[in-house]
């Protein structure tokens, strides 16, 4: 009897515990936005406020970011009964996880103004691109000028080599700060230059397990050039060190993206002095910037879809939205009039408009595959300088891509 009683009590307590979470109710007139990029939170809050004044729809923006596990936080948010109407997905991996709640936004006004939306074969247009980012060599232009390098003229491997030589000859600084510790730099960003240089067709071939699609010619030379002209021990150089190397005047350039300009500015550099040079190794990549969308806005189809839809349309299609982009220092992925103040952002926007853009093909790799597989390969190449083994390892990886 007592046993039964105690078991029953356990049960009651269990119900009481889970009961707290199941009071799901539909909220009216509120658009809940769950944001992943904490750095754009202030600008988004401001936009939400003006949007509420304009339309009367209340918007609640919640931001989670930095090192926090967004996936877990988002899942908790959904299960708490306070499911967000608008949330962020990072790419194919996230879309797979959230496929049951994503709304097809094919009728949204912005779809005509961009070619960077996330389209899933079965789910439709499920992601609105928030902004574009690009990477290459972010350089301190004063250092380039004093070495006699014009950043605009560097659009081939030979010219990059020449520029490095000039900077080295000048002797003030090392040409670049690269890293093989941060595997997202090597295993995602650097390797992507190879994918872009091999064209989409070649990359698809590689993805299906056939390494002959890759155009290796010259790629190991580019990576070798970065390895040998870099400051410090690449195996232990992390992102902060990379940034500090440029701001403290140890290196002229850093293999990073436009996101690093914010950190450089914090370290006391003038944004107006920062420029970007492309990473290229063959004709296909010559002078082009890899421009991609790191994350998308998605709509929960079980939420208030009409209001959510309008919110996103306003974000990328109104004067207030344009102000949001200026304030957040982001480059819109949807065509709109936005005032950008820093040269690197301007360069990226110009390249994007002029068609000098290459896709981020690495995002099509399975999650984390690039970092885990190519990361150690790049570090080995840095240590052994064995270009043949380096190329072979990249080619061999084709067989490991698990579908």
């Amino acid at each position, binding site marked *: 009897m007592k046993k039964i009683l105690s078991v029953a009590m356990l049960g009651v307590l269990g119900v009481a515990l889970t009961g707290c979470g199941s009071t799901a109710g539909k909220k009216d007139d509120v658009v809940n936005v769950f944001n992943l990029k904490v750095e754009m939170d202030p600008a988004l809050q401001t936009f939400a406020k003006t949007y509420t004044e304009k339309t009367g729809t209340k918007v609640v923006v919640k931001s989670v970011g930095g090192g926090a596990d967004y996936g877990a936080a988002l899942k908790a948010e*959904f299960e708490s009964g306070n499911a967000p109407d608008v949330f962020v997905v990072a790419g194919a991996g996230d879309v797979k996880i959230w496929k049951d709640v994503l709304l097809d936004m094919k009728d949204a006004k912005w779809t005509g103004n961009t070619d960077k939306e996330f389209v899933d074969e079965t789910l439709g247009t499920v992601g609105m691109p928030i902004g574009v980012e690009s990477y290459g060599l972010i350089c301190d232009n004063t250092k380039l000028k004093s070495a006699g390098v014009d950043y605009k003229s560097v659009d081939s491997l030979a010219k990059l080599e020449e520029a490095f030589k000039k900077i080295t000859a000048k002797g003030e600084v090392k040409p670049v700060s690269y890293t093989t*510790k941060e595997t997202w730099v090597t295993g995602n960003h650097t390797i992507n230059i190879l994918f872009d240089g091999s064209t989409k067709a070649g990359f698809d071939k590689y993805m299906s397990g056939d390494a002959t699609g890759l155009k290796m010619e010259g790629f190991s030379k580019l990576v070798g050039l970065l390895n040998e002209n870099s400051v410090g021990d690449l*195996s232990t150089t992390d992102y902060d060190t990379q940034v500090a190397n440029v701001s403290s005047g140890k290196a002229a350039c850093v293999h990073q993206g436009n996101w690093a300009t914010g950190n450089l500015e914090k370290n006391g550099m003038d944004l107006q002095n920062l420029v970007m040079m492309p990473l290229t190794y063959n004709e296909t990549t010559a002078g082009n910037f890899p421009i991609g969308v790191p994350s998308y806005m998605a709509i929960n189809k079980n939420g208030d879809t009409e209001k959510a839809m309008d919110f996103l349309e306003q974000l990328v299609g109104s004067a207030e939205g344009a102000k949001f982009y200026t304030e957040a220092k982001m480059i819109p992925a949807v065509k709109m009039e936005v005032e950008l103040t820093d040269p690197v952002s301007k360069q990226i926007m110009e390249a994007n408009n002029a068609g000098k853009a290459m896709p981020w093909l690495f995002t099509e790799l399975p999650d984390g595959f690039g970092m885990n597989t190519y990361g150690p390969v790049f570090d080995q190449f840095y240590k052994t300088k064995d270009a043949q083994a380096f190329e072979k390892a990249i080619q061999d990886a084709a067989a490991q891509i698990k579908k």
Partner: protein
Amino acid sequence: MKKSKVFWLFLLPSILAFCLTLLVPFILGFWYSFTDWSGGFSTPEFVGLENYQYVLSKTSFHYALIITFIFSILSIIMINLVAFGLAKIVTKGLKLESFYRAAFFLPNLIGGLILGYIWQFLFNQVAAEIFAISPLSNPTVAIFALVCVLTWQYAGYIMMIYVTAILNIPQEVIEAAKIDGAKKMQRLIHIELPMLASAFTVTLFLTLVNSFKQFDVIYSLTSGGPSTTFQGEAVMGTQTLTMWIYQTAYQLKDMASSQAASILFLFYLQ
């Protein structure tokens, strides 16, 4: 045996905590390791031993297994040697004895992550200046660096166990040995060490489990790097089993395989 209602009532919080934080996750995890669970909303489907096959076929997993064993053996030896040495020093009857005990114990109070980042600075900035290369740059040296940091952190804790045990050795026995003409070394090997046997059981067990499970220090110190080659493949040099499990789950987003590896890890630890 008759247990009263009150007995169960008092036990309830612990039982509940145990079930919710250990039993349920363990059973769920065991089940998930046989499915294609991705951590999202999708219902996991049974795939049999596929995850285990995948995990066991990975070169990086084999490497992780070996490096974990090497790391653990090295740190068990190091920690126990250092801890025993320290314990001998602080039971000699020095002045400021309790101050030394507290000082040696102190590193254990620093959280693993913070400790890792402090040592990372020491290795990458300070040691790199002195030796012209950071110890964390070479995979073999990096393993020793990790062992050193772990020893620095954990030896103080193990020392306390030895201290208690040493203080519990009856002085009569030692004195009798002295009278019989036993030298210092002989006393240590034939009298003290056998009398410390029970302490060794505890410390060996603690260091074994602690070294195998070590995660936060490795994560913050090297995050698995630098690279090395193993069976013709480039792998992460200090990627121990726990790091492998973490990276498979959160970088490769392969929850099910990671779960399978955790179950294997549990199996190896047994």
